[in-house]
């Protein structure tokens, strides 16, 4: 559904979206990487389990919550990608380590 703009820089780094190695421009956000390479919804809500995806892309709506490098409930639109970053969907309520 989403494509890179034609004038995007040609440089690429590798991140893992739901376990799949993909390449994205440096400076991308984790949410943008999800939109480019994910498959539809990027999280399910904690109460009703509804599918959701990034919306405002500017840190306001919290629809882009992702698990990033194992850390749950991160706002994906505020996290810049780094080489080797593991980006996963946030499914429902986060777990806690007791």
């Amino acid at each position: 559904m989403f494509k890179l703009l034609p004038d995007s820089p040609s440089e690429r780094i590798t991140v893992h979206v739901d376990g799949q190695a993909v390449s994205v421009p440096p400076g991308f956000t984790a949410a943008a990487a999800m939109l480019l390479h994910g498959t539809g919804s990027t999280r399910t809500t904690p109460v009703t389990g509804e599918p959701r995806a990034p919306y405002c892309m500017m840190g306001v709506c919290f629809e882009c919550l992702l698990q990033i490098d194992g850390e749950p409930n991160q706002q994906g639109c505020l996290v810049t990608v780094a080489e080797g970053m593991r980006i996963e969907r946030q499914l429902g309520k986060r777990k806690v380590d007791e």
Partner: protein
Amino acid sequence: MADFDAIVIGGGLVGTAVAYGIARLGKRPVLLDEGDIAHRASRGNFGLVWVQSKGFGVPEYQRWTRRSSDTWTEFSQELLEETGIGTGHERPGGVTICLSEEELDKRRRLMEQLHIEAGETNFDYEILTHAELKKMLPAIGPDVVGASYTRYDGHANPLYTMRALHAALLKHGGTYVPNARVESIQAAPNHFVINAGGRSFAAPRLVLGAGLGNKALGEMVGLNVPVRPVRGQIIVTERLQPVLPMPTLMMRQTVEGTIMIGESREESGFDDTTSPEIIHTLAQRAVKSFPFLRNVRIVRTWGALRVMAPDGLPIYEQSSEFPGAFVCTCHSGVTLAASHARYYAQYVMDGALPAELARFSTKRFDVQAAA
């Protein structure tokens, strides 16, 4: 002028519970709600339906609280059936966590005393060791020394409860008037005319359920209601998988997964903001009790004002100057919601408060201070 069976002032948990209770009796109440300029304790409270530790030295308060807690399950079920809105009420019992031997000893003495004061009402409690508590709440940390437990405690979502009460009030034919700040009260025995929000309302009964507003309103109908604000601050976390199977005095996990943390009391006048010192103290104690919280995100904090009488008890009274005017005020609008709806509303319509509420009369404030 609109005529009703009762006018209730205050659209929060207390006023709405009483108004709903009156409507449920087949009477026609009107609920006057000031608006968002009001202090809105019902929007900021914690949501415990709490029994243990209430009523030390005042067995009447212990019994009244217990009675409400015992009614809550049925009350919540009825609201669900009438409105389709769940209050999130659960009654799994509750604990007060102690972080030192000293705290636990103090707690043990308090619970023993409450047990004695309960008399034939009976008050079952347990003092749990760390190991015993760990079986009930596996997430406790090594700094937890023990806890007190009673099966009477529970919790509910205050906002859903209020929404359900409002919906149930309307369903039973009650009238809700928003933006209705009371401008004047013309009082005569069993006849009250109120101007509010540019309209007039008349009824033979009047209930003051306006929280901190009751002080000024009380003076207009011969009731002395010396309530003052006591601030509480609350921390709210992101939503987590279920990890707290029962509430503690300072912490509860909502059905949606949020953990709420709060136990502070401050004299701050009408300032309902938060302060870093208190939030820090709350967070530290919470992490000591449940170390997993160390890595949990805080999404919000807020402050809210409790409605507190000088002795911390509710105030229930009928005006002797203007019979038919009642005051109903407390700092436990959630815990006592069931009693206010089921019992207090009935007393108001009967026109007399029973002996069991005599301890909560305003007469207790008439004793002169020793020189």
